[in-house]
């Protein structure tokens, strides 16, 4: 289809190198030469509204963040599958309703998944009392 595959992606690489050079130049060279370096223990202390810090900053996180990431991956893969379909959708529709039906089945199956996690309360950030009681049960 296109004879320019590598050159177009090489352009991306060139752009990346230009941007990276800018970052390195400013942060690691120019600013490093200009800024003062006067380290002091108090200055380096962690900011916690002027109070001495309590406990470790690396606290344990709630499982809800993990749930969100799990649900995200499934839908991320779905978008990745939808993408090649979307770009050929119009062309294939000319040949009949198959492309449409096949994709509707695909989306419907995943919509079932969304409905499931929704109904089970996995998408609720603040869990209701019912959901909390429901947790132990499958």
């Amino acid at each position, binding site marked *: *289809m296109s004879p320019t595959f590598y050159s177009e992606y090489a352009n991306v690489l060139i752009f990346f190198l230009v941007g990276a050079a800018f970052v390195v130049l400013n942060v690691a060279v120019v600013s490093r030469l200009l800024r003062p370096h006067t380290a002091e223990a108090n200055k380096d202390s962690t900011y916690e509204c002027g109070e001495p810090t309590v406990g470790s900053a690396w606290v344990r*996180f709630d499982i809800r963040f993990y749930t969100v990431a799990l649900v995200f991956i*499934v839908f991320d893969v779905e978008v990745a599958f939808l993408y*090649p379909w979307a770009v050929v959708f119009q062309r294939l529709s000319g040949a009949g309703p198959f492309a449409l039906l096949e994709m509707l089945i695909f989306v419907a199956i995943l919509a079932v998944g969304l409905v499931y996690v929704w109904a089970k309360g996995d998408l609720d950030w603040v869990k209701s009392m019912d959901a909390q009681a429901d947790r132990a049960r499958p």
Partner: protein
Amino acid sequence: MRTLDYGTLAFWAFAATAVVPAFLVLVTRDVVRMAFWLLFSFAGFAGLYFLLGADFLALTQVMVYIGGILILILFGVMLTRRRDGGDSGIARDGAPRGSGLVVQGVTAAGLLGLLAAAVHTRTPWAVREAGEPAYTAAGLGDLLLTDFILPFEVASVVLLVALVGAAYIVRREPEEGE
């Protein structure tokens, strides 16, 4: 002697980007730093896919592995309870020493060699003609909706099962952990 063209140069650059951070993942002890190095390793593999002419696969690699799986790993790391406050490192107790190191090393090398031999002798490598490859997204769309329609629909079922299973496990976790 072969001339060093841009393609070969790019291959070695991406290969190094894939392998060197992967090695750093192995030797570093901080779990979050492992995730950081994994980011570059995944990016290196994405670059190799580009070189093979699979641009859509490369972007999907970035989108799913870097954009999704790695976030999941990070959250997983942040979920783990650390033994003593600030230390996010892995316990050193499990590290092999002495004769254990030898046994494990030989086993690992043997298995790796077996795998490499199997891949090398059994895989019918597809060889692409020289020249510029075509963009792949539209071709993939055509194939998914014609020749590979069954795997495509099965994929959605697999995703559904994964979603339901994952949600179920996550929901039960607090009761069993506490």
